[in-house]
């Protein structure tokens, strides 16, 4: 276990470094005159040059990258004009566009994204697995067909359509819920949940289908296995067979897929975040990409990468715990 964790940690460092290199490379080929964007469209060439100097954009790529690495391990000093500001290690740099430290920025954006991701994840797993379970339990009946159709419909509808419809129905027409507006958990847990309800539901509706289908197919496989026959022969009811024995077997693939999804969810669900006004990582990332704001992009991608690795490692541990035959490697 310790060995496994250590190796995963090493793997994570590799992933993060590789990610930052890829983003640096993509950044340098992508269009967008950074200094001009930072300075404003009507800045004079002289001013643009000054801004470029200040952002050290003139240095060769590898120098900039080394500078970035140095920031992570040692920190950086920045001029704010009136004084010098120290950005402490691990310093992911400072936004090109305004004077925010990336580390700080990420820390403020992360809770919102985490709230959205985790809540939606729980809900869509419940919805997906529940639907899969129900369709297996009622297999061959109308219920199964209806459920299959519904999950596919969810999958075929873009999240912004689902989200907007939910807002119109629940906030405008029925007035059952407030218009979503992010409230931090630490501020007011009840409001937090209340405001996140619709985004959670929207994401769950569009993301549940793969889980439903996977749950269903692995449950059907499990139901064909011999041990299910054992319990049937001992008078265990159909509900018990499906809910206890078949379901447990379906967890493996659900965990694997779930790890993939929750990890990338930490990269932010852009459309959902902007539709429901959740000040999260995704929206920030889109803005940063649009503004060619490299430090912010790298910072956010690294955070995502970290969570992807983390989620996968947790999934591996969970799978090994759920199925002792699986050995961590």
């Amino acid at each position, binding site marked *: 276990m310790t060995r496994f964790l250590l190796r995963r940690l090493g793997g994570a460092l590799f992933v993060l470094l590789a990610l930052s290199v890829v983003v640096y490379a993509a950044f340098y080929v992508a269009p967008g005159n950074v200094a001009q964007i930072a300075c404003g469209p009507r800045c004079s060439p002289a001013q643009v040059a000054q801004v470029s100097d200040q952002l050290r954009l003139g240095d060769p790529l590898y120098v900039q990258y080394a500078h970035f690495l140095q920031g992570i391990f040692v920190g950086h000093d920045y001029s704010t004009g009136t004084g010098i500001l120290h950005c402490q290690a691990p310093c992911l740099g400072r936004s090109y566009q305004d004077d925010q430290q990336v580390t700080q920025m990420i820390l403020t954006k992360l809770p919102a994204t985490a709230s959205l991701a985790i809540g939606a994840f729980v809900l869509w797993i419940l919805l997906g697995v529940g639907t899969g379970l129900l369709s297996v339990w009622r297999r061959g009946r109308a219920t199964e067909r209806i459920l299959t159709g519904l999950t596919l419909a969810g999958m075929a509808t873009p999240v912004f359509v689902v989200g907007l419809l939910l807002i119109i129905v629940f906030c405008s027409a029925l007035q059952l819920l407030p218009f979503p507006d992010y409230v931090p958990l630490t501020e007011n847990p009840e409001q937090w949940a209340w405001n996140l309800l619709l985004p959670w539901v929207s994401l769950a509706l569009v993301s549940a289908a793969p889980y439903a289908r996977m749950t269903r197919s692995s449950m059907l496989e499990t139901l064909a296995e*011999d*041990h299910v*026959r*054992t*319990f049937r022969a001992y*008078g*265990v009811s159909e509900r018990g067979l499906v809910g206890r024995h078949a379901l447990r077997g379906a967890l493996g693939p659900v965990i694997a897929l779930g790890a993939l999804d929750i990890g990338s969810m930490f990269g932010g669900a852009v459309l959902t975040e902007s539709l429901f006004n959740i000040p999260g990582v995704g929206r920030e990332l889109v803005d940063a990409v649009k503004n060619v704001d490299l430090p912010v992009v790298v910072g956010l991608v690294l955070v995502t990468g970290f969570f992807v690795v983390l989620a996968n490692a947790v999934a591996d541990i969970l799978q090994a715990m*759920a199925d*002792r035959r699986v050995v961590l490697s």
Partner: protein
Amino acid sequence: MSLVEVSDLTISFDGAAGARAVDGLSFTLEAGAALGVVGESGSGKSASAYALLGLHRGTGATVGGSIRVAGVDVQAATDAELRALRGARAAMVFQDPLSSLDPYYAVGDQIAEVYRVHTRASRRAARARAVEVLDRVGIPDAARRSRSRPHEFSGGMRQRALIAMALACEPQLLIADEPTTALDVTVQAQILDLLHHLRHETGMGLLLVTHDVGVAAESVDDVLVMQSGREVESGPVADVLGAPRRPYTRELLSAVPRVDAKRATPAAAPDVKGAVPVPAPRVAGGGEPLLEAVGLRREFGRGSGRVIAVDGVSLTVHRGETLGIVGESGSGKTTLGRMLVRLLDPTGGSLRYGGAEIGSLSDKALRPYRRELQMVFQDPVASLNPRRSIGESVADPLRAAGVLDDTRIRSRVQELLERVGLDPDRYDRYPHEFSGGQRQRVGIARALAAGPELIVCDEPVSALDVTTQAQVTALLAELQRELGLGLVFIAHDLAVVRQVSDRVAVMRQGRIVEQGRVDEVYGAPQDPYTKQLLAAVPALDPALATVRRAARKELAAA
């Protein structure tokens, strides 16, 4: 009223029109009595047993006739009535102990779950009951082991756990479907003794389904012989086995290998194509050495989870010779076999083949040797790709060799199929369309297609009924004689090994405890473990079985 009354039972799987798997079967079983159902593979034994609990319901199988079990009309009962019967009044022990338990839950929890279905006991009480029955079937340290999951149990323990589950609700009827097929003789003997003991202690009725006549002889009062879904003969076990009236029964009995019989003839089964005469007696170790293993070793896992599966094994296989390997489940037989053909990398020791050291060659470097070292796998189901026709599978080594063109390959494969006793026209059929014995022959044909020098046969007959077993062993012997192959024959059945081997090695916990010429080892075993193994072999004679059982009891008590 009897405990079980079955009359005119018919079962067909392909709709009412299809061929009947079971056809007009009738029998009764009284409380406290034991009925053995024997017959070749596919004769409808399991299908009949399932029908007693209504397990065909919802599968599309058609079940006809009347079935009464413990007062319940199984055919007419509602789903709820059936659930009340299952487990509580009539319990079933399934054939394969590994796949019959849920891998995800602790054994104790699974037993407790079944108990709670029928008794509404509290969780706690149910757990206590689970520990109690596990203890009863002889699981040591039952309270602790009840928290283990099935894969942490050995095969014998799993089988006992299944029996414990059956006992949890104190059923009036126990249906045991091939409860010992996968087990080595010592564990088999333990289980049969346990069933015998329980029957006498609780007055439970026992329906024992098996293809092993020896097992039936040991454990039941009456026996029913089946063939192709019909009854061939039935009656008290001593009568049927002692003086069989029907030719089929006689044939069945004659095919049973005897551990006390010297290796004289390869049990020439009458229906083997081109049945062979007695092979010329050979001097063991007379041929030139083909494969030589010295201090072969294999470990799995690391740290605390480390298992030493094979621990310093040295052996030699000569050209034209059969080396038998016996040993209990988990003793490292398969691991050793796989290392001999280099499907596994040895962790230590050396392996010489025809003068070359092949123990540490890379996959690429091994390729020239691949076709000369072949293996027939233990599980005929898993060893054939279900998605490819059997002809294609057999053709693989020929194609890999790349010498023959497509038509020549096809005709060569058909030749091989014929050689192993299969209809060559079934080239394009898929594995699931073959019976277990036939699949095993396909595996042999594939091994032969490669033109090997040595074949490792890993339990090639343990899943087969005696008649098929005899066919397969005869076939191997014949091929060996003709082609001068070296054979390694792995089995847990001592009688079969004796029948086919020139020399035998007895394995235990990764080591070879005894090795020598067959007659010497069987006639005068040196190692106590070998002695124990030989004592556990079931006898065909019920009277002898009783004596032996008593002897084993004494041995255990001592």
